[in-house]
């Protein structure tokens, strides 16, 4: 039953060198024609952070801090902990889904495992993500938040993040190749997901009814982003909420299962759909 999943994962492991090197070529090609080069990888997020902070932090919240179970946290910091993973999730989801359609022409003429294409996009985007995470840690230190034992579970949430992105892009890259409308649909969906996730506002706050929070928590990105905050703010361990943990992994594995099944089924005929 899990044969297809095993095969797809095996392909990733066998070609891990290829993935990393193709990702580095991807990054190189992206900003080749820009004068500022890969500096844009950091200028873009900085500009966006500034806008969101002004609009949501100063404008809507009037500069008030976010109240969490471990006390008050400045909104700027709270937002960064959500935005930085989001800057990784957003392009990875979109580019990963588009990757097969985009590269099919190039790749089909050689014996190249197509299942690597979404992963290459994820790996390519993760360099920026890791650097921004390190910068975030420095900002946290400046604000006086020192690392605790809870930092260790960042590793767990990174595994969650990559597993989910892998499962999602594997599934959605196949669908996006077969049905082109899906990519446009996804673009608007991702924009919506930003506001349905606890990135810019706190859906668990007092003003939101419980049932709304429950529905919003079904979104797997909610789990990941709150997980990052749990680790940074030393709020709770990941095993303290076993139902949410099981739900997230059930969702991710189901997605990965369907994704690899559909991928293997259609990959020999991808060229017929272009």
């Amino acid at each position, binding site marked *: *039953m899990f044969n297809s999943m095993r095969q797809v994962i095996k392909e990733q492991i066998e070609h891990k060198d*290829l993935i990393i*090197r*193709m990702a580095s*070529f991807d990054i*190189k*090609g*992206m900003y*080749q*024609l820009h004068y500022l080069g890969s500096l844009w990888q950091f200028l873009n997020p900085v500009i966006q952070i500034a806008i969101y902070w002004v609009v949501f932090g100063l404008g809507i919240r009037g500069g008030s801090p976010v109240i969490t179970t471990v006390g008050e946290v400045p909104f700027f910091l709270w937002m960064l902990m959500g935005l930085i993973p989001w800057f990784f999730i957003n392009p990875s989801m979109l580019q990963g889904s588009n990757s097969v359609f985009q590269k099919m*022409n*190039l*790749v*089909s*003429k*050689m*014996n*190249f495992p197509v299942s690597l294409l979404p992963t290459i996009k994820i790996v390519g985007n993760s360099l920026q993500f890791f650097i921004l995470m390190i910068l975030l840690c420095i900002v946290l230190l400046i604000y006086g938040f020192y690392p605790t034992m809870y930092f260790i579970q960042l590793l767990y949430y990174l595994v969650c993040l990559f597993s989910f992105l892998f499962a999602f892009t594997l599934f959605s890259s196949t*669908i996006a190749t*077969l*049905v082109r409308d899906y990519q446009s649909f996804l673009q608007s969906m991702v924009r919506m997901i930003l506001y349905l996730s606890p990135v810019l506002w706190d859906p668990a706050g007092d003003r939101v009814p*419980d*049932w709304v929070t*429950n*529905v919003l*928590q*079904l979104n797997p990105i909610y789990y990941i982003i709150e997980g990052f905050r749990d680790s940074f703010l030393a709020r709770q361990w990941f095993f303290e909420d076993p*139902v*949410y943990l*099981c*739900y997230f992994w*059930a*969702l991710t*594995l*189901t997605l990965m*299962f*369907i994704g690899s*099944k*559909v991928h293997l*089924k259609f990959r*020999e*005929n991808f*060229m*017929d759909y272009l």
Partner: protein
Amino acid sequence: MKVKVEFKHVSKAFQIHTKQFEKLLSLFSLRRRKENKVFMAVNDVSFTVYEGETIGIVGLNGSGKSTISNMLSQVIKPTEGEIYIDGQPSLIAISAGLNNNLSGMDNIKLKCMMHGLKDDEIERVTPDIIDFADLGDYINQPVKNYSSGMRSRLGFAISIHTDPDILVIDEALSVGDSTFANKCLIKLDEFKKKGKTIFFISHSSSQMKTFCDRVMWINYGEMKEFGSKVEVLNKYGRYTRWFNELAESEKKKYKKEMLQKQYANREIAKKGNENSSIISVGKGIGLFIPLILFGALMLFGY
């Protein structure tokens, strides 16, 4: 002699969807529809090619040459029949997949990597490729600044240096000038001497005469002739002359008739009788139970 490539009653049918919507419907329909309008791009082609042979493929535009070359290089799968290929085929087409934003140098590295070459192998062949493509200082420029001839030269140089067992050349030489074509033919001769198999698709019968062992003539999806190059090329020459001498209206009528034969109503037999619908995950349905269970728990705030 060792059999290198064998086609057994190979057909390739392309489904014709008059509307985009029909295509979508066929993806989601659970039952296989009995009748489908298809276009037989290649119809019941069988042949055997031995190690070290060079095969020319001729035919008019749209006769199915490129479909055959795509099947040879395993880009697309046949709808019917079997293909046996012993070794690693490599396709050289005009639209060689190069990354336009990267420089020629980076493209060499990238493509060699994708062909599965190791680091030291890449290092070894890179000077040869640069030398063969003969682009001068342009090698460090992004490929988007290249002319179409330069692009095909680079594509050809890379593909030929990745050491394939079977080389499929799809009109790739027609873009470059005659000096480059000559250079390529010399290189291909080297290949032949090494005992590699080459498929050569071209409209130039002079190149074929000097270069090929046997020639295959594809006409409207069917294999019309396959045999000694002189015989087949003469027949093909006579055919094109005959066609050219027809009056304009007769030409149109003839083409229409031939194309009509290629349209067929037939059921596309998928390999292993698989359903081509997205919704047929099959036995894995039990996997959804934990997801639904935990989802419900989450919703009710457990």
